[in-house]
């Protein structure tokens, strides 16, 4: 029991370290990439290529004055940023990050929570992330914040259905909620993105909406709502929201590559079943997540923002029917034995 606990904690520690570093690195990547896209240098003064800019930012956040609005609901106002991090740092426990390995005579399955309900746990925890946005907007007692929160909750319900249906379709061929089984199926057959291109497109669009990224960043649309739900937040509290956003993006990317792009594995390559194989698996997963994050940044600085009614229409009238169609198609193909 104790060794099991230690192994689980060690696995969580590894994943935690990976996901903890997402936000500072993405802070630099996002600013440099947007500068590149807009044909300007971007932050390049602190350290080589401006690499130490995130450290300077953290120092700045630490020393800024921490203001709580007088009319705010104090308890909820203080709780919201902390709650934002909770789903961000728990969802990745169901993502497998390597083959089954043997270390010091102990068989280890490289997934933090080795449970049957894998994907459902991910979806359940990530669906709680909207509460921090809603709490922040309501507690700030500010019109712009409240509007941002209302938008966030409406957007989440509209896109969660399409997201869940596309995830469900991706699980059908493997016949299991356990993501390790999904990866195993893809290693035996083919990356799911090929038979399920429709489902992948729905997942991709819904993922942008779920993480409140442009073109769907209506909850914080800066040209209409100042900064949306976090208008009243400054210093480290703002930094926590910022961190949660990027960590959520990374977690959803991890789910996406695990469902559609073989997760930690590469086609035709067998990793050794020891510590080296585990490290290679983790490196593969991180590389795939990095590609996804680059696409997130690229899209953000390329597309204009959707209008709110367009966002709702797209979710209910386009994505949901396509997701249902994809579900039926995949189920039929699996029954016919094509997958």
């Amino acid at each position, binding site marked *: 029991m104790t060794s099991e606990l230690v192994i689980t904690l060690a696995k969580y520690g590894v994943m935690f370290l990976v996901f903890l570093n997402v936000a500072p690195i993405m802070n630099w990547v996002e600013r440099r990439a947007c500068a590149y896209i807009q044909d300007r240098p971007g932050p390049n003064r602190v350290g080589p290529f401006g690499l130490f800019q995130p450290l300077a930012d953290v120092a700045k956040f630490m020393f800024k004055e921490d203001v709580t609005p007088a009319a705010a609901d104090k308890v909820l106002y203080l709780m919201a940023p902390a709650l934002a991090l909770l789903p961000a740092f728990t969802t990745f426990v169901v993502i497998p990050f390597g083959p089954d390995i043997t270390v010091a005579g102990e068989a280890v399955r490289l997934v933090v929570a080795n449970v049957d309900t894998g994907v459902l746990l991910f979806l359940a925890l990530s669906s*709680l992330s909207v509460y921090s946005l809603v709490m922040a907007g309501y507690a700030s007692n500010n019109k712009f914040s409240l509007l941002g929160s209302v938008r966030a909750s409406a957007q989440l319900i509209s896109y969660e259905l399409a997201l869940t249906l596309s995830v469900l379709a991706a699980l059908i061929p493997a016949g299991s909620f356990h993501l390790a089984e999904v990866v195993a199926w893809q290693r035996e057959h083919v990356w799911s993105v090929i038979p399920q291109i429709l489902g992948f497109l729905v997942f991709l669009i819904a993922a942008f909406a779920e993480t409140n990224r442009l073109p769907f960043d209506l909850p914080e649309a800066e040209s209409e709502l100042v900064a949306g739900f976090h208008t009243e937040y400054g210093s480290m509290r703002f930094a926590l929201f910022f961190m949660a956003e990027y960590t959520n993006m990374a977690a959803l990317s991890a789910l996406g590559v695990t469902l559609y792009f073989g997760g930690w594995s590469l086609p035709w390559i067998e990793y050794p079943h020891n510590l080296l194989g585990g490290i290679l698996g983790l490196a593969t997963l991180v590389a795939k997540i990095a590609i996804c994050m680059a696409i997130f940044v690229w899209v953000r600085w390329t597309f204009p923002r959707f209008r709110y009614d367009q966002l709702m229409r797209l979710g209910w009238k386009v994505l949901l029917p396509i997701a249902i169609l994809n579900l039926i198609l995949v189920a039929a193909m699996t029954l016919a034995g094509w997958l």
Partner: protein
Amino acid sequence: METLIFFLFAALALGSAIVVVVHRSPIWATLSLVLTLFCVAVLFVLLGAPFVGALQVLVYAGAIVVLFLFVIMLLNIQREESAHAGRGAQLWVALVGAVVFLGMLGLGFWRGGFPAVGPLTPESVSLKALAAELFSRYLLPFEIVGLLLLVAVIGATVAARRPGETGSLEAKVGDEEAPS
């Protein structure tokens, strides 16, 4: 360890359930409801039913209560409005409801006693076993529930239309959501 977790989350569930009923601010009540649902989900997991626990969080805490919050914030209800029926009437209705509920519970235990439940095995709580039961022995009730939900959805759509109004619902929604 498990007993400790059980008592912690059971107490939390009861405490937050009381806040749901008592608190004057609708937002606080709704957020407490989320906490209650989450704690009950933890209890499901402790009982060896992680599937039910995950669904509880996903469907209730993740979707339905978000809808509650959305409506509350859209209508901008700051404080509980004084109920149309007086406080006294409310109390009596609550008392009658509580007595009926306790009576039903008592009747159930009196008739069935406390059935001895064997230890849970991985087979008895597996998703496959659940699905097999649901889609074979309980197929008819399952389909009826589906039909009932469909009727409710259609009913809500019809009820949302103002009487005497013609034209599609879509046109109306489009008008309301168009940016000014």
